[in-house]
C-alpha cells in the first residue's frame, strides 16, 4: 500500500488507533468461521409459525383454478393465502417497475413463481400442506430469447405495460433500450486497417450466497409488523412492503438480521411480504427459510447475454471505432434490468479511448428466470466481450495483447462514450503494467520429486492426468465499473452519530441502516468514527429503519456513500463538541478561539499538539447527536436517443493476469494463478480490500469455468437448481491471488476512496478465458467454458 497521491483533505486524527487505513478485524469474523454467528435463518420466536411458498411448476401458463381446501384442512395449518387474499389494491412490487405480483394473478410467467402461501406450526407440515394445493395450469408458449420475444405473433409477457420505458422500446417484450452514439462510426471505420467482429455469449450466473433467503415477521400490538430480515437495503424493502400490507411505513419496522452474503441477489424482495402477510393474517410470528433448491428460484440471477461487437484499429494499434449490440435476458420481471442496460451500454467500450462508437443495449422480457442485480451489474458481460475483442485485434495486428491495451488505455480526462469525462485518476495502463510485471509461477509447477502432484493439475485428486495433454496459457484483461447509483438517481445515505461520556471515557455510537452483507461496513464505520472523533470506543448500532435510509449495499457504494455520511455526521458532531468546549472553556485559553482544533485520544488538542481539555470535562453529562443525509455529486440521465450524459459518479478499475493449465485432451482447466492490480483510491481497511479483491476474482473465475444456471430452451425450466449441479469454486479450484493495490486519490470522494467490491469480478473472467484461448488456440466465444467446448464434443 502506497501513501502516494493521498488526498490533502484528510480531515483529522489519522493517528488514532484503529482509525482509517488500519486492518482492524471484523467483529463477526471469528463467529462466522466458528459457526456461532446468528444468521437470519437461525431466528426463533416463542409460538412462531413456519411459512411455505407454493411455486409454479411451469414457466408460462394461465392459472385455471387453485384449490386450497385440502391444504387448509391439514391439522397444524393456520392459513393458506392466494392472490385473492391480498389485503389492498397494491398487489405488485418491484425495484423500479412494479410488475412483480406478490402472488400470481391469473398467470405465471416463470418457473418457480410464487402462487400460494401456507403458515403451519411445523415447517414440514407447511411443506406438506403446500403440496396439497391443487393448481390447474393452461400452458402458454414460452418466450426464451430475442427471436421468440420480438416475433410478430409473440405472446406479450406483460400486457398493458404503463411503465416509463414503454414509450421508447421497439417492442413490449423489451424492458428498456439504451443506444449510445458518439462520433461517426462509418467514417472512422474507413481509417481502420483491421476490423474484428465477434458474437459472444454469457451464461446465467447465480449469486450463490451461502445463507438462503430467510426472515421472521412478528405482528405488533399497534396492528403493525416487525420484520427481521436479511436484505441489502432495508428502506427499499420497506417502500415496497408497506403498501401491499396496507400499512403506513411507520407501522412496518425492519431490523437487519444476520446476512449470509448477497452479491446483488437480495436487492429484490423474496419472502419479505409473504412472511408479513402470514403474520398479520394469523396474529403469530412467522418465519420463512428457503432451502437451497428454493433459493435458486427465490432471487434474480445475473443477466445472461448475447453480445455482438465490431472493433477497428489502425496498423499502429490505435482503436478507430467500436460498434456493439448487447442483448440481456431480463426474464419474466423487470427487477434491475433498466439500470443493468444503462451500465452495459455506457461501459461497453471498456477502459479504452475510442471516440467513434455506435452502441445499443436492450433487456428482454422472457419466461426465463428473472434476472437483475449481481456484482458487476451489466459491466461484467460487456467486459467479457470487449476483452476478447482486444485480444483478437492484438493478434491480428501481431502485437502483444498487453501492449495493445496500454496503447489504447483511457486516462484521466478521457471521454466516455456518454461524453462524460473521467475526472479522477484512471491508471489503466499502470494496472496492466503491474500485473504483467509480477513473476510468473514456475513452469510445470506440478512436478515433484515423487512424480506428478495431481492436486496441482487439471482434475486434481480425480487423477485424470499426470501431465499428459497439459498446456499452460497466460491471459490478461482489464475492466471499468461505475461506483454508486447512476443516471440521476438520488443516491444518498443517512448516518446518526452520537458522542457521550460513559464511565469517564468518550464513546461514539454510529447508527445507520446500512446492510452489512459481508462488505465490511461495520468495520469501516468504526474506523471513520475513531479517526474523526479521536475516540477508541465505538459502538455500531444494529441496522434498522429507526434511522434514515443508507441506500443499497451494492454498486460498490457503501464505503463511499454511507462511509461518507458517517464521516460527515462525525464532522458535525465534532463541531458541536468543540462548540460546547469553546462555550465552557474558551475564556481559559486563547487557542480555543484561534487554533485549528482536533479530537484525539479523548482530548481536545490544537493542530500544534497542545492539549486544551478532556472530552469528559467538555461533555460531562451531555450527549451530542447528529443525524444527517449525505450525497455524492449528482448524476444525470442518459439521453434516450444519443446516450449522452454525465451518468456516473466514479469509476473503478482492476486488471488481471490469469495463468492456467489446460488438459487439452479432456478439456479440464486448472487456474494456477490470478494476479490482480486494482486502484482503490484509499484503502480504509487494507485487509478488507484484499478480501474483496480475492472474493471478486474468485466469483469471476467461477463464471469462467463452471458456474451456470441451465434453463431448458424448450420449457424455460431450470435444470440444475442445487449445489450438486450448479458448481461454485472450491478451495482446490481457487488459485493463488497475488494483489497489488494502488491508492490514487479521487479528490471528489471521502478520503479519496474508490469503491472496491465489483471491479475484480469484471476482469477475472475474460483473463481466464484469454489464458484458456492462449493454451488451446480455440476461439471460445462463450462463458462458462465446459469440457465439451474444449474437446469438440459439445
Amino acid at each position, binding site marked *: 500500500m502506497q501513501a502516494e497521491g493521498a488526498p490533502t483533505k484528510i480531515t483529522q486524527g489519522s493517528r488514532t488507533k484503529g482509525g482509517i487505513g488500519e486492518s482492524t478485524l471484523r467483529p463477526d469474523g471469528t463467529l462466522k468461521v466458528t459457526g456461532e454467528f446468528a444468521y437470519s435463518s437461525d431466528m426463533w420466536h416463542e409460538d412462531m409459525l413456519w411459512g411455505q411458498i407454493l411455486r409454479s411448476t411451469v414457466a408460462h401458463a394461465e392459472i385455471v383454478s387453485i384449490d386450497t381446501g385440502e391444504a387448509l384442512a391439514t391439522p397444524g395449518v393456520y392459513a393458506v393465502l392466494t392472490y385473492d387474499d391480498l389485503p389492498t389494491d397494491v398487489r405488485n412490487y418491484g425495484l423500479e417497475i412494479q410488475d412483480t405480483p406478490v402472488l400470481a394473478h391469473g398467470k405465471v410467467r416463470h418457473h418457480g413463481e410464487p402462487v400460494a402461501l401456507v403458515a403451519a406450526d411445523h415447517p414440514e407440515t407447511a*411443506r406438506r400442506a403446500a403440496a396439497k394445493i391443487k393448481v390447474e395450469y393452461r400452458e402458454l408458449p414460452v418466450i426464451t430469447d430475442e427471436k421468440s420475444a420480438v416475433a410478430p405473433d409473440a405472446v406479450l409477457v406483460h400486457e398493458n405495460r404503463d411503465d416509463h420505458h414503454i414509450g421508447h422500446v421497439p417492442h413490449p417484450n423489451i424492458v428498456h433500450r439504451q443506444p449510445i452514439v458518439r462520433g461517426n462510426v462509418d467514417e472512422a471505420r474507413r481509417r481502420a486497417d483491421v476490423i474484428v467482429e465477434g458474437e459472444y455469449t454469457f451464461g446465467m450466473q447465480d449469486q450463490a450466497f451461502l445463507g438462503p433467503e430467510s426472515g421472521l415477521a412478528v405482528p405488533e400490538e399497534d396492528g403493525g409488523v416487525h420484520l427481521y430480515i436479511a436484505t441489502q437495503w432495508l428502506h427499499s424493502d420497506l417502500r415496497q412492503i408497506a403498501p401491499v400490507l396496507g400499512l403506513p411505513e411507520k407501522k412496518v419496522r425492519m431490523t437487519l438480521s444476520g446476512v449470509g452474503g448477497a452479491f446483488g441477489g437480495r436487492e429484490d424482495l423474496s419472502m419479505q411480504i409473504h412472511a408479513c402477510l402470514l403474520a398479520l393474517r394469523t396474529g403469530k410470528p412467522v418465519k420463512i427459510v428457503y*432451502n437451497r*433448491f428454493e433459493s435458486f428460484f427465490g432471487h434474480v440471477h445475473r443477466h445472461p447475454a448475447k453480445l455482438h461487437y465490431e472493433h477497428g484499429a489502425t496498423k499502429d494499434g490505435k482503436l478507430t471505432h467500436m460498434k456493439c449490440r448487447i442483448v440481456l435476458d431480463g426474464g419474466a420481471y423487470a427487477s434491475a434490468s433498466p439500470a443493468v442496460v444503462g451500465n452495459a451500454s455506457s461501459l461497453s467500450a471498456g477502459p479504452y479511448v475510442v471516440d467513434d462508437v455506435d452502441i445499443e443495449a436492450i433487456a428482454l422480457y422472457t419466461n426465463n428466470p428473472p434476472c437483475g442485480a449481481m456484482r458487476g451489474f451489466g459491466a461484467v458481460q460487456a467486459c467479457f466481450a470487449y476483452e476478447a475483442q482486444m485480444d483478437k485485434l492484438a493478434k491480428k495486428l501481431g502485437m502483444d495483447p498487453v501492449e495493445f491495451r496500454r496503447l489504447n488505455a483511457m486516462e484521466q480526462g478521457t471521454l466516455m462514450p456518454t461524453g462524460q469525462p473521467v475526472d479522477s485518476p484512471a491508471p489503466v495502463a499502470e494496472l496492466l503494467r503491474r500485473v504483467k510485471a509480477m513473476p510468473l509461477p514456475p513452469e510445470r509447477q506440478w512436478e515433484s520429486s515423487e512424480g506428478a502432484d495431481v492436486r496441482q493439475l*487439471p*482434475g*486434481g*485428486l*480425480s*487423477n*485424470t*492426468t*499426470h501431465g*499428459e*495433454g497439459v498446456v499452460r496459457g497466460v491471459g490478461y484483461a482489464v475492466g471499468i465499473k461505475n461506483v454508486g447509483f447512476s443516471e440521476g438517481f438520488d443516491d444518498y445515505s443517512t448516518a446518526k452519530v452520537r458522542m457521550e461520556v460513559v464511565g469517564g471515557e468518550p464513546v461514539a455510537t454510529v447508527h445507520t441502516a446500512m446492510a452489512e452483507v459481508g462488505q465490511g461496513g461495520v468495520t469501516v464505520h468504526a474506523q471513520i468514527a475513531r479517526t474523526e472523533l479521536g475516540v477508541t470506543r465505538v459502538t455500531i448500532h444494529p441496522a434498522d429503519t429507526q434511522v434514515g435510509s443508507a441506500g443499497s449495499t451494492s454498486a460498490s457504494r457503501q464505503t463511499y456513500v454511507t462511509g461518507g455520511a458517517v464521516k460527515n455526521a462525525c464532522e458535525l458532531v465534532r463541531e458541536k463538541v468543540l462548540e460546547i468546549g469553546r462555550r465552557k472553556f474558551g475564556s481559559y485559553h486563547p487557542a480555543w478561539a484561534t487554533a485549528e482544533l482536533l479530537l484525539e485520544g479523548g482530548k481536545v488538542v490544537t493542530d500544534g499538539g497542545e492539549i486544551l481539555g478532556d472530552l469528559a470535562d467538555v461533555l460531562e453529562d451531555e450527549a451530542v447527536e447528529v443525524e444527517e443525509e449525505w450525497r455524492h455529486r449528482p448524476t444525470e440521465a442518459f439521453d434516450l436517443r444519443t446516450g449522452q450524459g454525465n451518468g456516473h459518479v466514479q469509476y473503478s478499475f482492476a486488471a488481471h493476469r490469469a495463468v492456467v493449465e489446460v488438459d487439452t*485432451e*479432456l*478439456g*479440464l482447466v*486448472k487456474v494456477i494463478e490470478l494476479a490482480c492490480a486494482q486502484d482503490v483510491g484509499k484503502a480504509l481497511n487494507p485487509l478488507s480490500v484484499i478480501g474483496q479483491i480475492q472474493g471478486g476474482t474468485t466469483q469471476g473465475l467461477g463464471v469462467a*469455468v*463452471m458456474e451456470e444456471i*441451465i434453463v431448458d430452451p424448450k420449457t424455460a425450466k431450470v*435444470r*440444475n437448481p*442445487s449445489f*450438486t*449441479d450448479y*458448481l461454485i*469454486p*472450491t*478451495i*482446490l*479450484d481457487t488459485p493463488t491471488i497475488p494483489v497489488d493495490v494502488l491508492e490514487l486519490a479521487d479528490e471528489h470522494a471521502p478520503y479519496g476512496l474508490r469503491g472496491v467490491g465489483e471491479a475484480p469480478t469484471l476482469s477475472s473472467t475474460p483473463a481466464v478465458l484469454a489464458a484458456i484461448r492462449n493454451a488451446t488456440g480455440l476461439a471460445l466465444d462463450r462463458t462458462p467454458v*465446459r*469440457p*465439451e467446448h474444449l*474437446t469438440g*464434443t*459439445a
Partner: protein
Amino acid sequence: MDFLRPASWEEALAAKAEHPTAVPIAGGTDVMVEINFDHRRPEYLLDLNRIGDLSEWEVGADTVRLGASVPYTQIMENLRAELPGLALASHTVASPQIRNRGGVGGNLGTASPAGDAHPALLAAGAEVEVESAARGTRLIPIDAFYTGVKRNALQPDELIRAVHVRKADGPQQFSKVGTRNAMVIAVCAFGLALHPVTRTVRTGIGSAAPTPVRAEAAEEFLNAALEEGGFWDNGKIITPSVAKRFADLCSAACNPIDDVRGTASYRRHAVGVMARRTLTWTWESYRGTHRTTEGAA
C-alpha cells in the same frame, strides 16, 4: 416416517423382513440428500449405525472383506496397498466430511451409475455379501449386481453386509472427470486393474451408461493383444495402436446420455482418454515391478 434402530445385525434383518420398503441408512450421505430434496419419503428408515462390525474390515489371503459402512477415509488410509483402485476412487468422493461418513455399502445400495466406487469394484473383481433373515447369506458377483438405473440385484428383504474385493495382484488405476477440481459428481469415470496372476485386465466405467459397466470387448481385445505379444513376460511398452484400439473399445462400451453435467459425446471421448492414460500408467507400473523382479532373480 419411522426410524428403526436395530441393535444387532439379526435385528436389522428381522426389521427388513418385516418392513421390506425400509431404506437402510448408514452414513446418510446419499439417503439424506434424497430426503432433503423430497425426492423420496420412505415409510421407514433402517439405521445401521449401531451395528459396529459393518464398519470393520478383514484382510484375508486373497480378498479383503470390507464392511458395508467402512468410511471412504478408512479405505484411503488403510487399504491403499490391498485395494489401490478403490482407494484412489475413495479419494474422489465428495469432501473430507462426507468421506468420513460414507461407505461402499451406500454406493452399492443406491446403485447410481455415478457412484465413485463402482468402476473400481468392477475392475478389481468383487462380490457383494447380502443377507436376509429368511434365506441367509449369498454372494452376488459384481458383474451381476447392477440391474438398471439405480437398481441392483438385492431382494426386498436383503441387506448389504460387506463387499469382498480381490486383493490387488497388479497395478490399478482410477480416473474421474468432474467439472471442478474437487467435490464433484462424476461426469464419467474409469477404473482399470491389471491381474498378472490370471494374465487378464478388467475395467469399470461409471456415469456413461444406465449402470456401471465393464468394457468387455476392450478387455478381451487387450487380453488377447497382451498374450499374443508376450507382453506379460517381456514387459514391453504397449504400442500406441494397441492403446488406441483399447481406448476406442472402451468408448464404444459407453451408452451415455446428454445431461446438465456433460454431453454423451464428451463422455464417450473422455472415457477413451482415461482408458488410454490409465492403461499407460498401470502398464508402466507393471513393467517397473516386472523389471525389478527380473533383476532380483
